[in-house]
């Protein structure tokens, strides 16, 4: 029996809401509405025990297409390169200088939001160019 599933991507974080807000801006994602009876997520947070306040945050694709992203606070910091990362679609269908220009323009927008430019990987005859970046907590991602 086929087992169709929903896939969520979870990020370990120091500051879940800060990282979530970055990814909202990067992807055009939105923060889902708080549960019935609460005006804001801050109101929900205040009902939690102190040690759980600010411990998690989520964002979703308003079009319902991309995966939900979930951010959870963990005590340890980032130690090595992540073995999983997101490829962010920017230059689909573009090639050559036009593609690099689109990647660099998006890179500049994200750097202004706190991301870090790592390096441009030029087209190599097999793969088109992509631009490696890090989010506000150092999680690697690619503009592709």
């Amino acid at each position, binding site marked *: 029996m086929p087992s169709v599933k929903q896939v969520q*991507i979870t990020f370990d974080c120091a500051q879940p809401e800060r990282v979530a807000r970055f990814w909202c801006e990067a992807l*055009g994602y939105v923060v889902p509405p708080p549960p019935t009876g609460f005006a804001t997520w801050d109101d929900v947070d205040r009902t939690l025990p102190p040690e759980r306040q600010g411990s998690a945050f989520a964002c979703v694709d308003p079009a319902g*297409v*991309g995966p939900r992203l979930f951010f959870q606070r963990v005590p340890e910091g980032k130690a090595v390169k992540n073995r999983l990362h997101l490829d962010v679609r920017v230059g689909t269908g573009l090639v050559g200088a036009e593609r690099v220009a689109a990647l660099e323009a998006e890179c500049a927008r994200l750097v202004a939001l706190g991301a870090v430019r790592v390096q441009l990987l030029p087209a190599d005859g097999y793969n088109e160019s992509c631009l490696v970046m890090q989010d506000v907590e150092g999680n690697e991602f690619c503009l592709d």
Partner: protein
Amino acid sequence: MPTSVRNVCFDAVDPYQLATFWSQVLDQPIAAECAPGLEEAYLDAVGGSSLYFQRVPESKAGKNRVHVCLTPELKRDEETERVMALGATLVSDHRNPDGTGWVVLADPEGNEFCVLRSTAERAG
């Protein structure tokens, strides 16, 4: 121009073998142009995005800071048994006596992932 998540990309020692595992987990075919031995392998779209596996020289060191969580169609415990039969291993069991909770598994290259309750189980 709006952006979107194109791929969730995994570093892999054996991209095709790891893609085969995830293909079975997600019931999504490996793209026709992929083959064993190539540097990359990927699935057809999953929820608008694809899982993509790329060969890297280094092996996994430490717990991943980004991981996949699955909300199955099957019940959580049935899904856990199914994916373990496909080659996943148990990392930690966070299931509670009241039926809530989740299971942390690792794929054949040690990448942690979670099996959550199904939508029906959450609603119940």
